[in-house]
Every structure is written in structure tokens, then in C-alpha cells.
């Protein structure tokens, strides 16, 4: 586990803002987020509406067209993401930056077999023959510990379980060897026992293939056990940033509140402590 930063960080985010115009005025989903990322695992934690997913989507370039994105700097290596032409951005997306979404039921194409979807990713970004593409897709399916890759290759997403679907999604996202992987709640839709398997696979591949990871989740404990560094977001802003190992010494009352409100086995706390949201947190 290394925290070492290369000369130019993999990703630089400075004062990122995402704003949605609505009938009743502007909604500021992300309000001035700054961080930089090397080849490390960074967690972004927050509740629904905190702007964590919109931060990930802005980096990936998946923000809806009517939203306004501004940043002092949003750069992948030394390439500026915001001023980049769309075609260049598309070439980057899926090749150098990949994203794993929450629920394989909705994010995989329901009318394409899993194999074809993986092959499609490969063919979009690389010049490969049909045979090579198939072989690489199969070996990728094997890498995500799918026991019978040949069979799963031919299956449609509805024919596999949630855990299997999510592995297929990981395979699809890693097949081009991205440098940055954004995982937005990659295991929240899965059963608890399957969650650990999928996380284990993801962890191994990220370590082996050496890439930067942004892990977005509402689960502070999970994120801290998975990542090197954690950013806590509240109302579109970063309220605290700390190394995962120092989670216990978190200072912001919001972070502490999130840690405390979970019921755990063996802690007899009735009633559970609840978050007392202070207005100044959102300022």
C-alpha cells in the first residue's frame, strides 16, 4: 500500500462545482470540491444528496447536458477535461477512466449478451480482431473469478445473479486497462455475503493492475476498510478528509455522527444516537 504521489497526479480536481438549473432556482449539487489523486484508493462518503455521485459523474463526464460544471482545474494527468473536445473525452471514457455503477440490473444492456458488451468496449477503444477480443473478454471474466467464462459469455444480464452481473461489469470496465476507476456504490445492490466476494475481487484487481480508485459509498465503515484515504461530503462540500486508519480520530461532528448512528452487534444503545444536523455544516 503506497501513498506515494507521482510528479503529476493522476487526477486533479480544484474547486469543482456542479449546478442544476430548476424551475425554483439553481440546485448546487457540488459546491467547490478539491482533491488530487495518485495511484491510490480514495473513498468519497456521504449521504444521499451530498454530491458524492455527482462528483464522480463530473469526472467521468456523465453529468446531464443541462447542468453547469465549473472548476478552476479538472485535469486527468496534464490533460484538461473541461476544455477537451467531446470526441477526445469519449476516447478517454472507458479506456483510461472507467466507472462501475451500483446496480448491474439497470446498468448492463439488457438486450446484449455479457460477452458482446465486453467485446464492444474493447473494439471501441482498440484495434483488435474478433478472435483476440473474445479471448481477452474470456480471460477478463476469468479474472473476476467467474468459474465458467465460456457459458457466462453467452448469457444475457437477466440470466445471471446480481453478484455475477457486478463481476461482469467489473470485467467490462477493466478490460481496457484503465488508469482511473470510479466505483459508485459498487456493492450496495448486492447481498451482504456476496458483497465481500465482489469487494475482494475488485481489491485484488486494483492492486495487481495498479490504478487509481475512487470509491463512492454511503457506508463510512466499508469505505474506510477499503481505501487509503477518505473524503467526507456534506451538502456538496468536503467537510473532512482523513487517512482511513485515523477514522476513530475524526473531528467533524458529521463524520462522528455517521460513525455512531449504526447499530452494531454487542453495543446496547437504546435509543441510538442520531445526527443533529447543524446549519453551519452546510455553509
Amino acid at each position, binding site marked *: 500500500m503506497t501513498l506515494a504521489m507521482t510528479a503529476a497526479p493522476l487526477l486533479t480536481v480544484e474547486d469543482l462545482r456542479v449546478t442544476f438549473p430548476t424551475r425554483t432556482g439553481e440546485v448546487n449539487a457540488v459546491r467547490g470540491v478539491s482533491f488530487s489523486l495518485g495511484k491510490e484508493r480514495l473513498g468519497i462518503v456521504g*449521504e*444521499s444528496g451530498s454530491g458524492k455521485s455527482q462528483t464522480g459523474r463530473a469526472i467521468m463526464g456523465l453529468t446531464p447536458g443541462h447542468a453547469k460544471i465549473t472548476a478552476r482545474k479538472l485535469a486527468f494527468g496534464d490533460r484538461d477535461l473541461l476544455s477537451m473536445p467531446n470526441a477526445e473525452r469519449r476516447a478517454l471514457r472507458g479506456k483510461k477512466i472507467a466507472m462501475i455503477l451500483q446496480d448491474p440490473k439497470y446498468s448492463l444492456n439488457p438486450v446484449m449478451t455479457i460477452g458482446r458488451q465486453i467485446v464492444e468496449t474493447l473494439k471501441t477503444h482498440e484495434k483488435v480482431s474478433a478472435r483476440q477480443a473474445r479471448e481477452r473478454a474470456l480471460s477478463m471474466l476469468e479474472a473476476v473469478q467467474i468459474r465458467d467464462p465460456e457459458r457466462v459469455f453467452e448469457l444475457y444480464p437477466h440470466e445471471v445473479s*446480481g453478484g455475477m452481473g457486478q463481476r461482469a461489469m467489473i470485467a467490462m470496465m477493466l478490460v481496457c486497462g484503465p488508469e482511473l476507476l470510479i466505483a459508485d456504490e459498487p456493492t450496495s445492490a448486492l*447481498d*451482504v*455475503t*456476496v*458483497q*465481500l466476494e465482489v*469487494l*475482494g475481487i475488485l*481489491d485484488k484487481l486494483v492492486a495487481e493492475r495498479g490504478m487509481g480508485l475512487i470509491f463512492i459509498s*454511503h*457506508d*463510512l*465503515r*466499508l469505505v474506510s*476498510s*477499503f481505501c487509503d484515504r477518505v473524503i467526507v461530503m456534506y451538502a456538496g462540500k468536503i467537510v473532512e478528509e482523513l487517512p482511513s486508519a485515523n477514522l476513530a480520530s475524526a473531528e467533524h461532528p458529521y463524520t462522528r*455522527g*455517521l460513525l455512531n*448512528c*449504526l*447499530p*452494531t*452487534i*454487542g453495543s446496547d*444503545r*437504546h*435509543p*441510538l*444516537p*442520531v*445526527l443533529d444536523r447543524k446549519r453551519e455544516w452546510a455553509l
Partner: protein
Amino acid sequence: MTSALSVRDMVVTYAEFTALNHVSLDVGAGESFGIVGESGSGKSTLLRAVAGLASFDQGTLTVNGRPYSGRHRDKEFYRTVQMVFQDPYGSLHPRQTVDRLLLEPLLIHGFDNIETRITRALDEVGLGAGFRFRYSHQLSGGQRQRIAIARALILEPKILLLDEPTSALDASIQAEILNLLEQARRDRNLTFVMVSHDLGVISHMCERLAVMKAGEVVETVPAMALEKREFSAEYTRRLLVASEGFRRG
């Protein structure tokens, strides 16, 4: 301890698939009983079969000493047993105001003092009169779940069936809803049957729990046993390990 709810050898099948395979359990009056398991283990099917939302093919169901069969439930049953569902976005009528949502069960069961009952129900779940004429899309997830709880409690039931009542909510909102449910249980001496995939939530809320897998009850243990690790099934251990989070290595 008298039994409030008793299930004997219940079998539920969907076409060729056996969703519940000879499941038996007893829940005492005033007890809080938990059911844990993965998706597909039959835990929700069990609650739905008790509530009459799914019909059972074999076995018996006794609620407060009265036997029920298959799918038919009379009004008396729903006066005694109410249910709170997982998804607060899907379980409230999108075109009814909160007032209408709370009114309907009162009218069906011919309650009097409708006005006071609705105001009291809203107060009890911590929402107040300001929420009475809103639609569900004007409420947050936590507020919706409070309305769902108010709707269940307004009939003054004895038994509450809770199907993953907090799994769609943020952790901090989950704490609020769990506290609300505990308070309601204390005030009204309710019996809870609570389904969840989260062992932490179940051990916090329940005194005893059943672990389900593939349509069968693997084992029934006191909640204390989880802490002391006094259980026998390998599957229970796996759930417990999973609940402790990710470990590298």
C-alpha cells in the same frame, strides 16, 4: 409467554419453485422477533404469507389464538396485524395526500374521532400537522417511512410486520426510524416481526431471531448469541463475518 403469532410447517410454492419449505416459528406477545437471510431466502415471502399477500399451500397460521388459512384475511386480522414495507417510494399512493392515506384505513375499519386520530398519528411519528396535506413526492425517504409507520399504527394493531423498514434509508435516518419504532413498541406494547439482511439492525431491535436460507429456517437463536457467538449454523457465521465489513488479505 403466550404466543401472538404461530406458524407451523408453512409451505409456499410459486409454480415449480418452493419459496418456503416447512417453516415454523412462534413469536410471543410483546416480543420482537427478527428474521435474517439473503435475498431469495424466503424471509419476505414468510411475512407476506402471514399478511395474506401470498397464499400458503400447506401448514397453519395462528394469530392471537385464531387460525387463518391460505390467503383470505378478515377485517379483524388487519386490526391486529399491520405491515410496513421496504421501499417508502413504492408503498405510498402517489396521488393521495398524507391525509387521504391515513384516512383510508380508518374509514375501512369504521373508526370514530377521525380528526383527532390523524393528528395524533402524525404527532406520534414526529411529523406534525404541517405534513398532513402533502403528497408523498413532497416528502423525503425518511418522512415517507414515518408516514408508512403512522398508517400502520393508526389502526392500533397488536402486531407489526416490518419488511426491511430501513434498508432504503441513509444510516443517520435509519437510526431515527429505529428509535421511532422502539418508542412505539414500548408505548403500545407491540409485537414486532422484523425482516432484515442487516444483522446489526436485527440484533439491536430484536430479542430472538431466525436465520433463513433457501426457504428454510436454518436456526433460531437469542440475539445475545450473536455477540457471544453461540450459534451452530455455518451460514449464520458467514452472515456475521459479512456484517463485520471488508478485511484485506
